[in-house]
């Protein structure tokens, strides 16, 4: 099913999204990769606040190329989400509900998604030039020393995504492949 949604990703909205849905996402999202997640989880462990309000937030796993003059951002496709698996349950426990990336997730992440009504969206890996077109604003908000891995606040319009794992734990990587193979018999 094709859906146009506007953030924040409330629990109510998250529950309407199903694995296999094509979603066009509009709103504010935050970027972070391994190094940023590590710092955020260390900050939480020390009882400190995050550089953004995590409640109903969506995090895009991306390290963009530098913007050319006149560009909002450089190429900005997803990185492999599995490297954030060690941190994702902690992020969901403080309210960050949406994740945008690519690739498989561990069962612990899926369990946390079921507990906190999380949604895992897939952006097309390797389509960084196309995805950059949906990013209308980009602001560096923390961890500047990490370069491409710094935390950025983005405003996106109609970002094309697919729901890979929904809040009930349904997984397009399993169902999509099974359906294709069944259609070949």
């Amino acid at each position, binding site marked *: 099913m094709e859906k146009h949604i506007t953030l924040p990703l409330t629990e109510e909205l998250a529950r309407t999204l199903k694995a*296999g849905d*094509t979603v066009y996402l509009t709103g504010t999202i935050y970027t972070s990769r391994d*190094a940023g997640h590590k710092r955020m989880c260390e900050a939480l462990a020390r009882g400190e606040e995050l550089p953004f309000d995590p409640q109903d937030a969506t995090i895009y796993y*991306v*390290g*963009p*190329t*530098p*913007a*050319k003059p006149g*560009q909002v951002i*450089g*190429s*900005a*496709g997803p*990185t*492999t989400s*599995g490297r954030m698996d060690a941190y994702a349950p902690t992020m969901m426990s403080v309210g960050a509900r949406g994740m945008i990336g*690519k*690739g*498989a997730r561990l069962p612990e992440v899926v369990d946390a998604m079921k507990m906190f009504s999380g949604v895992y969206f*897939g952006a*097309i*890996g*390797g*389509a*960084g*030039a*196309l995805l*950059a*077109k949906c990013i209308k604003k980009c602001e560096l908000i923390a961890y500047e020393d*990490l*370069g*491409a891995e710094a935390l950025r606040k983005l405003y996106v319009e109609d970002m*094309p995504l*697919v729901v*890979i794992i929904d809040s009930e734990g349904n997984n*397009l*990587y399993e*169902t*999509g*492949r*099974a*359906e*294709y*193979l069944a*259609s*070949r018999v």
Partner: protein
Amino acid sequence: MRQVNVSQITETVRRLCIEANTHLPEDVKCAIETCRACEDGAIAQGVLDNIIENYNIADWENVPICQDTGMACVFLEIGQDVHLVGGDLRSAVDEGVRQGYDQGYLRKSVVKDPVRRGNTGDNTPAMLYTEIVPGENVKITVGPKGFGSENMSAIRMFKPSAGLQGIKDFILETVEAAGPNPCPPMVIGVGIGGTFDKAALLAKKAIMRPLDTHHPDPFYAELEDEMLEKVNALGIGPQGFGGRTTAIGLNIETLPTHIAGMPCAININCHVTRHKTEVL
């Protein structure tokens, strides 16, 4: 004896870093478009359409195809009748990478220590491979390698008794384990023979070989076709969402090996299989 100033190598590496990251080779585009025509599912078709639109945008706007602009793998084939002058070759290549990644607005993705990390800030050092060949030319290939796919690569030292079946099973097992992580559709490079290290290098060279070519030995040429078909019967599909196109190409490179062994390395690449060559 022909003299080549290393400043020419710096300039060529600089330009090739930018061009390889911006313009996908025609054979790769052609393979993706052929696969698009064979997909039936709406999601798989949509993914391939977006991938095609993406490399067209990169072409027209001169922007990187993918944000992971890779480690710069630089292959130099240096003619034995060439005398390199004007400085140190390794520094000249790194300078080309430094300039290319800066001027091309490419991402700096290299850390200075594998365990203690810390970005080098300029994407150096290059992964440099040099080979001395007959003649008086210098052939330079730059192949930026992303790590979403590099991380899914594998190597195994087979006993000779494992035979052809062992290699076939290993290819399918590696692609299965990679699943959606390396941004399928993939390009699969298989290196068989040599030593532990040479097999890995063969696999890397295999992903750089044009996808519309075959191994010169018909035995391996047929194996390339057979294994591509088997990989595409796994159903992983574009981005792992299910479909026919799990891989757009599978190339095999081989070398003689020891009586006691049969090394096999598999280098996985994504659909953004970038490389550009120039001869000085």
